[in-house]
């Protein structure tokens, strides 16, 4: 008897720390970038699996979900290789171009279709979009509480959980009723390495694909059409590759540095 069903929402992203800029054209060089599981999501998956390990066999079921093009199936297989029970791919051309709102619409429909999910776990943000908004928006769509930046799940049962969240300079511990959604920080665990059995299962497993029709989603509510925000311009900032040595008295140096950083919007 499944006591707690957990949905883990993950995303495939281009591994951006590798991105290089062509200095001549000031454009990105895509070559050599591999698609990877969003690094923060690995912690979400691990936490789902660890919650299951707190209970007896068969009491907790962990399902991985992703919305994306067909090739996103790969990250669902990775999730299975590290221990999630099953996975669902939400894929349809109509889902493309979704902002965080339309993404949460699609995920909410899928979670309702799965039914009786007591806990939804997400990574704190994605490497590409970098917003961290899907979690709270999804929770709101589902009408359930959301705790961001969860750093420890102290207690959990079917109806309640005690969870600690990390803020800039403190921890806050909450008790909330389930169902609920949380996003996790890296502090929460260390994701495991895949197991051989897990990899073999991932190789052979059939991953169901749900499209807009199966989710009973109108074209107008998903993807770019269902988004409230739209990208109107994309450009590359002037990246300064060479080192800029800042000269002068210490006061002048600090003032200059401060200005440069302001200009780059890093402080």
């Amino acid at each position, binding site marked *: 008897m499944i006591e707690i069903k957990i949905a883990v929402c993950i995303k495939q992203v281009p591994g951006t720390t590798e991105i290089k800029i062509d200095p001549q054209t000031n454009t990105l060089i895509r070559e050599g970038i591999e698609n990877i599981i969003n690094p923060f999501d690995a912690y979400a998956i691990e936490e789902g699996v660890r919650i299951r390990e707190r209970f007896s066999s068969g009491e907790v079921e962990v399902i991985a979900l992703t919305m994306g093009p067909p090739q996103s199936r790969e990250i669902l297989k990775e999730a299975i290789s590290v221990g999630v029970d099953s996975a669902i791919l939400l894929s349809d051309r109509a889902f493309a171009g979704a902002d965080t709102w339309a993404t949460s619409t699609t995920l909410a429909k899928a979670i309702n279709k799965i039914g009786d999910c007591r806990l939804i776990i997400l990574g704190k943000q994605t490497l590409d979009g970098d917003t961290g908004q899907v979690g709270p928006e999804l929770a709101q769509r589902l009408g359930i509480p959301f705790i961001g930046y969860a750093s420890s799940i102290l207690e959990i049962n079917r109806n309640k959980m005690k969870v600690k969240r990390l803020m800039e300079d403190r921890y806050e511990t909450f008790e909330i009723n389930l169902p609920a959604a949380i996003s996790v920080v890296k502090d929460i665990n260390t994701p*495991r*390495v*895949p*197991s*051989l*059995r897990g*990899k*073999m299962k991932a190789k052979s497993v059939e991953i169901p694909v749900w499209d807009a029709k199966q989710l009973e989603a109108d074209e107008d509510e998903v993807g770019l059409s269902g988004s409230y925000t739209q990208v109107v311009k994309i450009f590359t900032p002037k990246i300064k590759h060479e080192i800029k040595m800042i000269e002068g008295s210490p006061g002048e140096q600090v003032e200059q540095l401060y200005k440069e950083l302001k200009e780059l919007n890093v402080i």
Partner: protein
Amino acid sequence: MRYLLTEEQKMIVDICRQIVKDRIIPVRAEMDEKGIFPWEIIKEIGKSDLFRLFIPEEYEGMSTGIFEVCLATEELSRGDLSVAASYAASGLGLIPILIAGNEEQKKKYLPQMASGGKLAAFGLTEAEAGSDAGSIRTTASRDGDFYILNGTKQWITNGGEADIYTIFAMTNPEKGVRGASAIIVEKGTDGFEFGKKEDKLGIRASATRELIFTDCRVPKENILGSEGMGFIIAMRTFDQSRPAVGAQAVGVAQAALEEALNYSKVRKQFGAAISSFQAIQHMLADMATNIEAARALVYHAAKVIDSGEKNVTRLSSMSKIFASDMAMKVTTDAIQIFGGYGFMKEYPVEKMMRDAKITQIYEGTNQILRNVVALDMIKRGVL
């Protein structure tokens, strides 16, 4: 260069590489310096099913061959030989149960080993019995339903950390080597204690300890095979385990080569990367060639064992001799390429050399193994 590996074998390699990258490399220098036993990593290896490999499926294993164990051992050794040695030594402790254990013993011990929470160890060496293994003095005298063990084992890998020990003791001292028996002793048995942890040149994170038996009573059911079979069990165990020592050597040498190659490309002297100098190029080429030759021999030995061939002593010993001598040479040369930096603890190559040394010594010194190879050859011909 990747050998023609099956899907499953590639998965084993991938898993090990991830463990090495994420879990081993970040902590290996600290573990080495402080001599910290790598339990966290061993547990991760367990969760990844790597302890299941050559254990039969009916005992919750995955029924692979020795070849797969060698693949895993080689890859782990690229990260840290202490980890690989602890992993391989657990296998060494289990092989006697696989070879000579009865159904009940297998059912009792193999599943708990397969799931990876526990380690095994192999207890043969004594202060006066190294290469001359036949002269062990630890005794196991029968007393009703028990054997009573007395004596001290020395330099036992995984000593103190393992839960299950395969101990070789004299049940009939007058018979010499034919009087030795293999007995399973569990940690926590009364009269079974551990001596001090050795402070070593290399594989410093692995546990090497004395096992001290003082009127230690072990149930008679724990004997493997029958009385007097101990020495045969030990030798047959080594036949199967030695390619894994070769794999350790190949792994650590590979790691040293990778470090040396990378360093040679970034280190500049006389205005050029040192990799552009022929003296360095030839060293790198020789290192790579020797590693490849050793790997081929190790893999071949493992595959011959897995084919079910009975007379594997010679090949198994050759793979260990060749690979370990190669590893000593390659790791030393790696330091040479690093120059003064290689001698410093800032870089990992000095540790690799210290670690590599043990592969020439344990599970039969390369000298005693040359005797074994020569005697087998004289007896059975070149083949």
